[in-house]
């Protein structure tokens, strides 16, 4: 029943999308006709149908309708409701439908205010965006239809991968997808702009808010993934430079660059071509990332339903978008007279973009290099964190300095207050010397990171005070984001440098002394939960220095459908540090692996990212009010 309903909805939405494309082409060719109310109704219809079809899939998951293959393979009646819902995007088919639903939702929101834009620009953008939706709908129908039936109907589903049954990971895909998919709208707009000779500043105004909102969601989407990795994977880290993580970071670099250069375009009518390239690149990288993740060409610890055939489809979509978009770009782009002299705000924003591109190239290279060596010379390699750390960290130091002084330069004017620069630098170095004296921090790179992030933080705080005094509140967004980023780097640096990690093996009843700690493995408890069994360890950790006593209860969960083990870390968080304990069993041995970690200032890393991302939406509210 639901299968038939869902399939019909998909079919209607394909027809509607095709109709929109045809209709817009007709209107475009007939100079006399206005954008009729018809087109808007069609867009509303298209979006409604696609969203309803996605909700149909969600309800199939909620009522456990196992007549659908997708539901059968990824759900189970015993699962809690929230994971039944999350199951609908925890698989390839469902996530693709969510992708399309979000894409048409963005399309709807963008096009609903049709009077805002020039007629040609509007129509070309609409044609491109709707064609993209159409392309993905066809992909959905031919290679990953979530509404396929299975006969006879099974009584019970296979269940969702237990490692995905987690609140952070339930919201992670939708957040990330809003960022990913939202970038399609300025991809389309860029092509629309190229085809219609729209003025650069108008173009910048029309896409600026969309860039901000996608950047915001992309940022917190990545954050949700990191938090999940931190407490679920049991290593105590939150970023592993794994190909799948990198795939989400690539469009993020692009968006961040765009977020900055679009301001230059809006204010100075410069960098139009470059902004267009970034718009096109962001979405192309999104698809490229999807290809790398879903096709299984990459070797990642995170798994998704890999399937080479689907990979081929995504590769076709990727080549289509790449070739057409950059084809249009080279045919239609006009040469720009670029004149800028002196060190001013524009220069700093361009500097930001250079850094972003450098990070982008680095991460891209590190991610795809293993594919090349394997294809070309059959040598199996992987690129680990050391590569990224050695290449990226030194550049982050310089980047932070630029990020501090950049906002203090003027548009078109001259930089800079040298006295302030040296004062702030001096203050940061002084604090670093105190740190070295008390904590004996020897790593040069860490000290540089410490100085430069403090530099940025101080500079931004001075900025904040100035803007409070002068009541120029339009700076809030930038101050939020820059301060957030400075704090993020600072806390990551401190956390990395002062983390302690102990790996030992214990039997129940044993005690082990290491460093200042005494770890007591008291006993084991066994109990049942609705869809898994638990082996819980009772640990007491004594800190002999501060006489602090903490109890930990890490778990080993044995899921039945599908049959899998997961290790749940036991984490005690406070404002100063996280204490982190995981336990895992070792086959054919009474010993348990115990990992105990002390991770200072962990919670502040999350808070910094939230602060940084908030910059994206405070800007959004501001400019909405101004319009």
């Amino acid at each position, binding site marked *: 029943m639901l299968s038939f309903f869902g399939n019909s909805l998909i079919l209607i939405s394909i027809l509607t999308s095709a109709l929109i494309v045809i209709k817009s082409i007709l209107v475009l060719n007939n100079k006399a006709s206005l954008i009729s109310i018809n087109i808007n109704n069609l867009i509303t219809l298209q979006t409604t149908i696609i969203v309803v079809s996605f909700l149909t899939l969600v309800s199939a998951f909620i009522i456990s309708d196992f007549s659908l293959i997708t539901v059968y393979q990824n759900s189970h009646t015993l699962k809690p409701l929230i994971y039944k819902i999350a199951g609908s995007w925890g698989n390839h088919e469902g996530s693709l439908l969510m992708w399309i639903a979000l894409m048409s939702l963005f399309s709807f929101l963008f096009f609903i205010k049709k009077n805002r834009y020039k007629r040609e620009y509007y129509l070309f953008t609409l044609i491109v965006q709707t064609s993209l939706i159409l392309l993905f709908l066809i992909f959905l129908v031919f290679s990953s239809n979530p509404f396929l039936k299975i006969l006879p109907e099974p009584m019970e589903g296979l269940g969702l*991968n237990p490692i995905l049954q987690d609140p952070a990971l339930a919201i992670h895909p939708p957040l990330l997808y809003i960022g990913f998919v939202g970038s399609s709208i300025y991809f389309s707009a860029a092509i629309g702009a190229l085809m219609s000779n729209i003025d650069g500043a108008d173009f910048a105004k029309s896409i600026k808010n969309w860039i901000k909102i996608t950047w915001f969601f992309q940022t917190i989407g990545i954050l949700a993934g990191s938090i999940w990795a931190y407490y679920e994977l049991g290593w105590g880290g939150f970023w592993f430079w794994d190909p799948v993580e990198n795939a989400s970071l690539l469009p993020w670099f692009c968006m961040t660059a765009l977020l900055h250069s679009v301001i230059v375009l809006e204010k100075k009518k410069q960098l139009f071509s470059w902004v267009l390239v970034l718009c096109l690149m962001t979405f192309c990288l999104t698809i490229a990332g999807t290809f790398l993740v879903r096709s299984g060409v990459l070797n990642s610890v995170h798994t998704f339903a890999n399937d080479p055939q689907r990979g081929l489809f995504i590769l076709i979509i990727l080549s289509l978008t790449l070739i057409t978009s950059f084809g249009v770009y080279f045919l239609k782009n006009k040469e720009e007279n670029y004149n800028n002299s002196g060190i001013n705000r524009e220069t700093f924003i361009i500097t930001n973009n250079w850094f972003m591109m450098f990070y982008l190239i680095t991460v891209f290279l590190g991610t795809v290099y293993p594919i090349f060596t394997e294809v070309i010379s059959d040598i199996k390699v992987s690129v680990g964190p050391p590569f990224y750390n050695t290449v990226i960290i030194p550049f982050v130091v310089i980047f932070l300095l630029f990020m501090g002084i950049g906002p203090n330069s003027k548009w078109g004017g001259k930089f800079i207050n040298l006295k302030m620069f040296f004062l702030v630098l001096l203050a940061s170095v002084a604090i670093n010397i105190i740190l070295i004296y008390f904590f004996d921090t020897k790593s040069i790179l860490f000290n540089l990171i410490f100085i430069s992030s403090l530099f940025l933080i101080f500079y931004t705080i001075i900025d904040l005070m100035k803007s409070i005094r002068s009541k120029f509140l339009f700076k809030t967004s930038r101050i939020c984001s820059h301060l957030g980023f400075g704090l993020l780097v600072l806390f990551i640096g401190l956390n990395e440098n002062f983390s302690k990690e102990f790996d030992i093996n214990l039997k129940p009843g044993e005690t082990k002394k290491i460093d200042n700690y005494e770890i007591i493995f008291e006993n084991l408890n066994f109990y049942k939960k609705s869809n898994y069994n638990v082996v819980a360890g009772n640990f007491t950790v004594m800190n002999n220095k501060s006489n602090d006593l903490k109890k930990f209860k890490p778990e080993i969960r044995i899921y039945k459908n599908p049959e899998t083990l997961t290790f749940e870390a036991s984490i005690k968080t406070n404002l100063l540090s996280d204490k982190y304990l995981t336990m895992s069993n070792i086959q054919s041995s009474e010993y348990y692996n115990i990992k105990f970690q002390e991770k200072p200032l962990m919670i502040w890393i999350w808070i910094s990212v939230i602060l940084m991302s908030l910059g994206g939406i405070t800007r959004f509210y501001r400019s909405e009010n101004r319009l």
Partner: protein
Amino acid sequence: MLTKKVKKKIILISLIFLFLSSALYFLYISLNKNLLYFKTPTEIFNSEDINIQRIIRVGGMVKKNSIVVNQEEVRFIITDFKNEISVSYKGVVPNLFSEEKGVIAEGSLKDKKFFIAKKILAKHDENYMPPELKNLIKE
């Protein structure tokens, strides 16, 4: 004579070129320095000189009855059925680590027969297997 504008452009383009090529060179060098090569016990056995500083990955099967645990470390033997290598590991083993199952250890060699692992590769679910292992099992 070149006009001022053209001159400026040439300088700009050569600067960009210089920046790009040096950045790419730097990337290439650090990439090569930090690549993790994947080796089987036989490849290690046959290699003429071994670099004990370099981090590599060793893959194969965990030999039957080879896992030994004490308070400090886990020891086991990786075999590819022709040669084998002993591994010492401090840390948490992934949930699917068991005897007669595939494993990938990351770390450095002490000699041709002894490997000190820093990391044992985790697998998220039972369906997933690192491609290196898949090929190995096929062989």
